[in-house]
C-alpha cells in the first residue's frame, strides 16, 4: 500500500470516529424534539400539573429550576471569585495553598449523589433548614465552587503581569491594583466559567433529591424554606413513578430542560465571543 492510500484510510478512520461523537448528540436532540415538540404549548409551560401530574403543565418545575439555579450561583459566585483572587494574587506557594488546591480538585471529582447526602446531613438535618430551596441551592453552590474557582483563577492569570506592575509602580495598593487593573479584564472569563457551571448543575438530580425537590407541589415557592419542584427531578418522577404517564409530556419536559441548558451554554458562548472581539490587548 502506498503512502497516499494509507493516509486516505487513516483520515477516513479519524473522520468516522469523530462523527461517532457527534451522532449521539444529534440522535438525542432529534428524538427528544420529535417526541416532545407536540407537548409544548403555552398551557404546558405556564400551568400547574394536574390529575396526578398526568396532565396540566410544568410551570412550577420551570420556576423552581430557575430559582434554584439563580440562588445557588448568587451564593457560589462571590465565594468562588474571592477564593480565586486569593489563590491567584495573594497565596504563597506553601503547604496550606497546596492543600487548598488539592481540595478544589477533589471537590470537582466528588460524585453528585454524595453532595446530595452531604447537603442532607449539613443543611437539612444539622442546620435544620429542612428540605427546601435554600438547602438545595447551598448544596448546588458547593458543587459549582470548583468550576467557578478554577475558571476564575484561569481568567485572572491570563491578565498580563505587566498591568499589575504598572499599577503598583504608581504607588497603588495591591488591593486597588486587583480591583482596577486586574479584575475588570478577567471579568469575561469569570462570567463564561460561571454560566457554564450553571448549565452543568441545572440538570443535576442527585444533589437536590434529598435537599430541595418536592414530588408534587402545584404551587410556586413562597420563601427560601419552601420545597420546590425542579425539572430534572420531575422528569425522573414522571418517567418512573407515575403509571399511564403520556410519553408526550415526558419528552416535552426533557425538551424544556434541554432548551434551558442549551440556552445557558449559548449565552456563555455569546459573552465569550463578544469580549474576545472587543479584547483590548
Amino acid at each position: 500500500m502506498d503512502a497516499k492510500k494509507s493516509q486516505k484510510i487513516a483520515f477516513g478512520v479519524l473522520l468516522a470516529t469523530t462523527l461517532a461523537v457527534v451522532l449521539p448528540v444529534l440522535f438525542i436532540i432529534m428524538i427528544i424534539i420529535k417526541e416532545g415538540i407536540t407537548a409544548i404549548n403555552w398551557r404546558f409551560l405556564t400551568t400547574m400539573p394536574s390529575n396526578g401530574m398526568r396532565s396540566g403543565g410544568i410551570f412550577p418545575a420551570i420556576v423552581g429550576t430557575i430559582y434554584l439555579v439563580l440562588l445557588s450561583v448568587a451564593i457560589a459566585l462571590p465565594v468562588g471569585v474571592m477564593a480565586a483572587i486569593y489563590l491567584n494574587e495573594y497565596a504563597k506557594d506553601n503547604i496550606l495553598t497546596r492543600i487548598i488546591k488539592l481540595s478544589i480538585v477533589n471537590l470537582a471529582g466528588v460524585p453528585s449523589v454524595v453532595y446530595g447526602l452531604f447537603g442532607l446531613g449539613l443543611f437539612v438535618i444539622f442546620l435544620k433548614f429542612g428540605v427546601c430551596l435554600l438547602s438545595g441551592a447551598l448544596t448546588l453552590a458547593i458543587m459549582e465552587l470548583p468550576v467557578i474557582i478554577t475558571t476564575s483563577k484561569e481568567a485572572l492569570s491570563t491578565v498580563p503581569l505587566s498591568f499589575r506592575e504598572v499599577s503598583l509602580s504608581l504607588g497603588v495598593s495591591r488591593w486597588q491594583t486587583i480591583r482596577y487593573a486586574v479584575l475588570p479584564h478577567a471579568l469575561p472569563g469569570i462570567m463564561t466559567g460561571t454560566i457554564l457551571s450553571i448549565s452543568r448543575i441545572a440538570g443535576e438530580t442527585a444533589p437536590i433529591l434529598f435537599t430541595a425537590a418536592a414530588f408534587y407541589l402545584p404551587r410556586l415557592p413562597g420563601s427560601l424554606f419552601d420545597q420546590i419542584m425542579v425539572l430534572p427531578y420531575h422528569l425522573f418522577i414522571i418517567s418512573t413513578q407515575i403509571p399511564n404517564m403520556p410519553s408526550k409530556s415526558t419528552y416535552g419536559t426533557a425538551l424544556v430542560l434541554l432548551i434551558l441548558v442549551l440556552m445557558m451554554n449559548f449565552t456563555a458562548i455569546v459573552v465569550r465571543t463578544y469580549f474576545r472581539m472587543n479584547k483590548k490587548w
Partner: protein
Amino acid sequence: MVAKITVNNLSCRFGKSQSVKKLDLTVLENEILGIIGPSNSGKTTFLRALNRLNELHPHYKQQGEIFIDGKNILLEDPELLRKRVGMVFALPLSLPLSVVENVIYGPKRHGVKSKKELEELAERCLRSASLWEEVKDRLNGAALKLSGGQQQRLCLARTLAVEPEIILFDEPCSGLDPLSTAKVEETMVELKEKYTLVLVTNNVKQASRVCDRTAFFLMGELIEIDKTEKIFISPEDKRTEEYVTGRFG
C-alpha cells in the same frame, strides 16, 4: 549637587542567581544618571530595587541599604515610596483604557475625585510628556491605538501624574523608532529641571546624548561611574572602554 539616592553595598539575588553584587552608588538631585552595560549585568534589577518592585518576585533577596533623601527605603511604606519614585517600563505598557484614563489612573486611586482637577492634571502631565498636541483631540480614544512612541510618552505622563520626585526609565526606547526616541530623549532632558532621572539603556549612544553621568555595569558589578564625557572619551577601566567603543557587548 545634593545626593538624592545613596546606595550602600547593595546585593540582590533571585533564588540562586545573584544579579547585583555589592554595589555602591550615588544619584545626584536633578541629574540624569545613565546606566549602561550588556544584558544580564544587573541594570534592571538595580533600577527595580529603587522602587522595591523586585519584592514582587517570590524568591527575591536583598542585602545592603538604599537611602532616598537620607531615609532608608526599606523602612518606608512601599506604596508611598513608589509614589515618589516613578517608573517607565521597557515596553510601552498602556493599560487598556482611554488616553486620559491612563494618565489619571494613579491620582484617581490615590483619592483625587474632582473631575476638573483630574482634567487639568491630565493636560499638564501630557504637556510635560510632550504629547498633548498629538492627543488633545482623542483623549477619550483607546490608548492602545496610539503609536509606540506616543504610548511611551503616555506612560511617562501617567508616571508624572502621581507627582514623583525620581523617575526610573528602564530602556524606555528599546521598542521605538529613531524619531520617537528623539522625542522621548528631548522630554527627558526637559524633565531634569524638576526631577531626578535614572536611565537604564542598552543604547550606548543614547546615554552619551542625554546623561550627565554614566555608570557602567558588568555581571552585576559597578565597574565605573563618572561624568558622561569622561566615560566615553577617557574611561579608567579597560572594559568600559571596550564596551562603549563597541568592541564587546
